[in-house]
């Protein structure tokens, strides 16, 4: 194709440039200056007797589309020259300037003639020429025939209709003339918005009027445009108006182009609202006409009446979906719900312990403090009859109770808890009930808030094969967590992630929950017992033994029952547990930790994450002395279960275990049989073994039999 001129980067030929009948890429919203780069080199041409051809490069629209019509002339006769430049017919003359300039060899502009009022073009504006063309007349620009002269056109306009030109006559030659039309398409600005394109075919209705219809039978099939802000809705006009079925437009939006078409090829501006989309063919045609309404590009709702359309458009909630629209099912994908399952939870938020210790206190002790406490407990000078016991006896006389019974428990943890719990207070005394025991050589940390967790560490989980073998059932992943147990995991949840292992501890029961957290999200958690219960000299040793044996990890089973003779029930856990009135017993089930009954007195409820429930013990505990005196013996029955003390023998570090099914693959498998593919492409892009799932065979010269043979072979496997 011979290139005669350029529009921006587009190469154009006088011989092949068609008449424009559709949309062009030059969209110029209003009002901005419009520039299009057109360089036009026109060398010597021979005389031509030909019908003039015109090239409409613009488009009919509410916006401005500059267009250029190149008019070749053969030098015969007088009249019009050069080119035709057109904009909207409503362009005001002052919005247009035609400069004829001259540049020197260095590209510096040396002369600049502004045509009077934009040369002859101004005479054509304001509607004098229905087709709105600009005509540059040779007579007003005599320098146009000389070398190095350029013509620059600056056009400013906001609106107007560019209408299609028809053929015209006259051709002229131009010699050694360069035309540079400074219309820069790079300045175009297309606003953001939603493009929509609706096909409107037929819809059901009844024609009841036999009034004379318009002469022209037509129906609009398409509606398109761009909505840049606000909302727009269509609504069906009721009845048949003057032989027309219509859709109305209600909007608070800004449009960028609104056009209709009867053939989806030629588009025209929507000139009236409501706009007609159906005419009946014959004026005396009555009855029910079957017609269907369907839409292509989604987004624009169509309502049955104006009121519904208005309600939705005027809804102060800009995001309210048009659920009442007749085409809601079609456009609903364009209105996705905002996270119907809740807010995004990209990172798990953990809670905190806010409860404070009221009637019992927690003391974090080191060995020296415990030695001192236990020694003081037995401090009694038999000679002087003084010491702690002496005080205790006095207390007994005074209060009639045994302050030793307030010792509720002692547990050992496999870490320094002062690094875990920060809300503590250091002091050198503890209270036995109301009795303050001063520590001379050591101190304890009294727990104010038992709020803290152990961040054990982070480990990365990586795939082994990076293919299907990494997942169940071909690869199984297990995790061992100290003091918790050994559990299977869903491998797919952990691959490619760094897993943080965190322990939450219940200091009162020794229970713990180990959490597996990946990328800030809690993926799995498992319960266990991390606190090793230590027997207290004056507590029920049998109770301790029972509780230790009754600690159920994940293979818990039968509860331990201890019954006293004569109805003195020590405690009884399990399904037959005796409770105080109104308290529920903890069911001993698989995987639950036992309720460990420690304390005495009413209302000591043990509850922990590992426990299915707490047992409120209302019966006073018996001391070992009492048991022995009563001749009772606790008996236990349980299957062997691990205790937290025994867990100290097991690994103190977590580990992950992968059980991987290994393939016994032949070395020739891929070469002879390939591997699963599901790839799409053309046959020529494959090599080696190829087995086809489906094929759209293109094979022009093969017979039907041969084509089927090819298909059969492709589906059974070929070698390329």
């Amino acid at each position, binding site marked *: 194709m011979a290139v005669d001129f350029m529009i921006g980067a587009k190469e154009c030929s006088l011989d092949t440039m068609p008449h424009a009948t559709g949309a062009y890429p030059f969209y110029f919203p209003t009002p901005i200056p419009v520039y299009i780069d057109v360089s036009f080199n026109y060398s010597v041409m021979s005389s031509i007797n030909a019908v003039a051809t015109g090239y409409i490069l613009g488009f009919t629209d509410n916006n401005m589309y500059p267009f250029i019509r190149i008019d070749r002339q053969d030098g015969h006769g007088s009249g019009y020259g050069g080119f035709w430049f057109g904009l909207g017919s409503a362009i005001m003359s002052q919005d247009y300037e035609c400069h004829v300039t001259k540049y020197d060899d260095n590209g510096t502009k040396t002369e600049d003639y502004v045509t009077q009022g934009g040369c002859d073009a101004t005479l054509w504006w304001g509607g004098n020429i229905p087709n709105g063309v600009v005509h540059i007349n040779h007579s007003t620009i005599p320098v146009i025939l000389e070398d190095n002269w350029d013509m620059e056109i600056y056009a400013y306009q906001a609106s107007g209709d560019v209408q299609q030109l028809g053929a015209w006559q006259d051709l002229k030659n131009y010699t050694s003339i360069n035309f540079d039309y400074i219309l820069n398409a790079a300045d175009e600005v297309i606003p953001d918005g939603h493009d929509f394109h609706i096909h409107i075919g037929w819809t059901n209705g009844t024609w009841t009027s036999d009034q004379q219809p318009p002469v022209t039978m037509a129906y609009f099939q398409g509606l398109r445009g761009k909505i840049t802000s606000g909302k727009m809705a269509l609504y069906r006009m009721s009845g048949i108006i003057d032989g027309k079925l219509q859709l109305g437009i209600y909007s608070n939006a800004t449009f960028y182009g609104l056009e209709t078409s009867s053939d989806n090829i030629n588009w025209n501006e929507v000139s009236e609202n409501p706009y007609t989309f159906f005419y009946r063919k014959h004026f005396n045609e009555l009855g029910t006409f079957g017609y269907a309404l369907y839409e292509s590009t989604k987004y624009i709702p169509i309502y049955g009446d104006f009121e519904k359309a208005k309600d939705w458009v005027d809804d102060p909630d800009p995001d309210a979906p048009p659920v009442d629209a007749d085409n809601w099912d079609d456009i609903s994908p364009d209105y996705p719900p905002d996270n119907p399952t809740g807010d995004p939870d990209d990172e798990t938020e953990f809670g905190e312990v806010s409860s404070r210790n009221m009637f019992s206190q927690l003391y974090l002790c080191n060995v020296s403090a415990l030695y001192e406490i236990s020694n003081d407990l037995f401090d009694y000078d038999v000679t002087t009859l003084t010491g702690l016991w002496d005080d205790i006896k006095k207390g007994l006389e005074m209060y009639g109770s045994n302050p030793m019974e307030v010792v509720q428990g002692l547990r050992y943890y496999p870490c320094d808890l002062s690094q875990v719990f920060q809300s503590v207070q250091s002091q050198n005394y503890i*209270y036995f009930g109301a009795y303050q025991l001063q520590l001379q050589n050591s101190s304890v940390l009294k727990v104010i808030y038992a709020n803290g967790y152990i961040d054990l560490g982070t480990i990365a989980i990586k795939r082994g094969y990076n293919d299907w073998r990494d997942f169940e059932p071909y690869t199984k992943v297990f995790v061992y967590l100290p003091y918790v147990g050994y559990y299977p995991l869903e491998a797919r949840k952990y691959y490619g992630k760094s897993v943080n292992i965190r322990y939450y501890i219940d200091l009162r029961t020794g229970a713990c929950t180990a959490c597996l957290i990946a990328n800030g999200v809690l993926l799995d958690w498992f319960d266990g017992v991390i606190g090793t219960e230590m027997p207290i000299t004056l507590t029920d040793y049998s109770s301790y033994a029972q509780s230790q044996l009754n600690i159920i990890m994940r293979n818990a089973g039968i509860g331990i029952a201890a019954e006293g003779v004569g109805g003195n029930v020590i405690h009884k856990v399990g399904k037959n547990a005796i409770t105080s009135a109104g308290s529920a017993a903890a069911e001993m089930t698989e995987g639950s930790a036992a309720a460990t009954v420690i304390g005495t007195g009413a209302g000591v409820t043990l509850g922990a994450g590992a426990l299915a429930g707490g047992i409120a013990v209302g019966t006073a505990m018996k001391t070992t002395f009492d048991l022995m005196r009563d001749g009772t013996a606790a008996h236990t029955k349980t299957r062997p279960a691990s205790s937290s003390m025994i867990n100290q023998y097991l690994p103190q570090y977590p580990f992950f275990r992968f059980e991987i099914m290994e393939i016994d693959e032949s070395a020739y498998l891929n070469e002879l049989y390939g591997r699963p593919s599901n790839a799409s492409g053309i046959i020529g892009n494959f090599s080696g073994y190829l087995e086809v799932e489906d094929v759209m065979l293109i094979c022009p010269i093969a017979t039907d039999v041969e084509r089927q043979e090819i298909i059969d072979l492709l589906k059974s496997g070929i070698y390329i």
Partner: protein
Amino acid sequence: MADFTVQLYNTSSAHNVVHKQKTLLRTITGSLKEDTPMEQITMNVGYFEDYYRCNYAYIEKFHRFYYVRVLLIDGDQVRLTMKSDALSSFYDGYKNSKIIAKRSSSNCNPNIVDNASPFKPQPKIITRKANFSFTPSSSGYCYVLTMGGK
């Protein structure tokens, strides 16, 4: 029909191989005495020594490769029964056809399970331990004494 050339080959490639390995035995010229479909051609040719090796042919006029079955009619003539090899003949024509591949040597998806892969009976066990752990000791505040009281 005018004479046409037949190239006689020996091929060891299977039927489902597109680009067959073949060895040219000889080139003969002949013509069809009667109407015959291009996919199935039977022709008698003069005896040639290595007739028994001929199992493949190409007829340029028909733009086709053929599988050949040789029958020795008598001492002077050999009858060639030929059936078109569509897979090899028209590859340049159908290689631009769109497909969805089920299995492929060149374009495979590693995330699709391959049921053609047998497994060893015993799984491999891999253990990965963390480089962090609890550190039970008697130092530090590792005991919790629970007391009723103030």
